[in-house]
């Protein structure tokens, strides 16, 4: 648009904006107030630029180290990485096996007992409220360092996710097929086995693959609390501030996560 045209164009008349209700302003004020409070040094996180400026050089050299991975470290990372994948696989299998019956107990069409269903759902809500690393930290103190606490922590974490997603998909199932089963004289167990399971199976398989992807990500850091896998190595190199070795591990984690996501996507398309 030329300058002459721009000058001759009439000014854009913007219609008056609808007045905001007071509630919006109150919400904005509350958010701003909480943000200010949480940034105060005495009771908040102490959002302070000074240490960042002072330590910037320190950070800069670390970032340079991060950009130059120590490739010679690779052989030592292979065994822990395999253990990480083993933990992810076994956590998924154990978690999925326990989740299948729980999903049926947590869904309305497959479990008509209101109190029992409510109890299962409440238990799962509680399980979901605790992060998997917290489970791992507590389990390490219980059963000792190694892959076992990691696998149990992942399995618990997976039960929370799979049961929620699969029981929701059972709840959303077409009621007609289940009514037909009931009309044909099937018991609840028979209906669950013959109709609800067949309908829920694709959802179950795809959620299981989904939590496997989550497990690969999660299991890389479980070692930071002592639960085996590549995380133990991450903890070791961070203690010695070997950021060049850390960088190699992060690269490996990235590659493994991306490859697993691709493979699991391919399997999902074949199976579901």
């Amino acid at each position, binding site marked *: 648009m030329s300058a002459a045209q721009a000058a001759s164009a009439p000014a854009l008349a913007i219609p008056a904006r609808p007045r905001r209700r007071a509630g919006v302003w109150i919400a904005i004020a509350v958010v701003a107030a909480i943000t200010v409070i949480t940034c105060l040094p005495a009771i908040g996180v102490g959002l302070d630029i000074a240490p960042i400026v002072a330590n910037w050089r320190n950070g800069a050299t670390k970032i340079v180290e991060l950009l130059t991975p120590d490739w010679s470290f690779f052989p030592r990372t292979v065994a822990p990485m395999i253990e990480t*994948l083993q933990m992810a696989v076994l956590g998924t299998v154990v978690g999925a096996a326990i989740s299948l019956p729980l999903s049926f107990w947590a869904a309305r069409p497959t479990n008509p007992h209101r109190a029992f269903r409510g109890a299962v759902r409440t238990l799962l809500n509680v399980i979901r409220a605790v992060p998997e690393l*917290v489970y791992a930290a507590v389990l390490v103190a219980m059963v000792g360092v190694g892959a076992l606490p990691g696998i149990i922590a992942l399995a618990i974490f997976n039960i929370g996710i799979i049961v929620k997603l699969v029981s929701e998909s059972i709840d959303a199932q077409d009621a007609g097929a289940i009514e037909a089963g009931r009309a044909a004289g099937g018991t609840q167990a028979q209906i669950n086995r013959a109709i609800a399971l067949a309908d829920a199976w694709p959802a179950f398989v795809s959620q299981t693959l989904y939590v496997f992807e989550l497990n690969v990500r999660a299991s890389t850091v479980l070692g930071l609390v002592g639960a085996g896998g590549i995380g133990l190595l991450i903890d070791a190199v961070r203690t010695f501030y070997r950021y060049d070795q850390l960088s190699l591990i992060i690269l490996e984690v990235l590659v493994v996560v991306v490859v697993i996501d691709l493979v699991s996507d391919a399997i999902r398309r074949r199976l579901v």
Partner: protein
Amino acid sequence: MTALAVPARGRSPWRMLSVVVVTVIVVAAFWSVQISWGRLADLPADIGRYLWLMFSAPEWSKLPEALWQTWRSIEMAWVGTVLGILLATPLSLVAARGFGPLWLRGALRLVFSVIRAVPELIIAIIILSVTGLTPLTGALALAVNGVGTLGKWGYEAVETVPPGPIEAARAAGGSTAQVLRWGVWPQAQPVFLSFWLYRFEINVRSSAVLGLIGVGGIGDMLTSYTQYREWSTVGMLLIVVIVVTMAIDAASGALRRRIMEGPRAR
């Protein structure tokens, strides 16, 4: 009563192959993993015993300290969320089709997906070389991690907005900023608000996890008492984590439903 016949499922070669491959991987993992299988026999009894130690008589005298540390964790989550929103929102607008140049869009999307693949604990380990083991490190790690998810959700939300108002704003001669403000924002606002709240819920969980590497908050306290094996305190701390997380999820979930469905829904 006769058994209900289960109809046979179709068999495709790909399905068979996938089943075989998955089975082989699972069996190999079981066979090769380094676990003292002897321990598994006493495991249920052990876990029962520890659950009894933790929850039979939780140590309520340390509750004030636990609540203070919880507050620190929530602050970390809040600051991380706010910083994440401030960083991610402009980036996600530039990364949306129709608003940023192709090369920049590609680069930003790559950055978002790389960040999403790195666990927040590793991001915190990188950041702590600059800021040390402080809650600020935790907040910054959550903010950086949030850019990965908020950035992706953001550009997806902008791209799925109905194009009519955008075209109208453009046809009326609006600049890119004006198109975003008047064509995109009014439509995408509920989705953005709901994503921000959801990210805050995620950050509340993650802030407890970040404490495990020592940046402070409830996770820090939990690790210490786990290491001292003071099980009654650990039990009390777990109860606090569960109650606080569920309360924040419930409040934030109710707000999200109200934002997405309006006050009259439900």
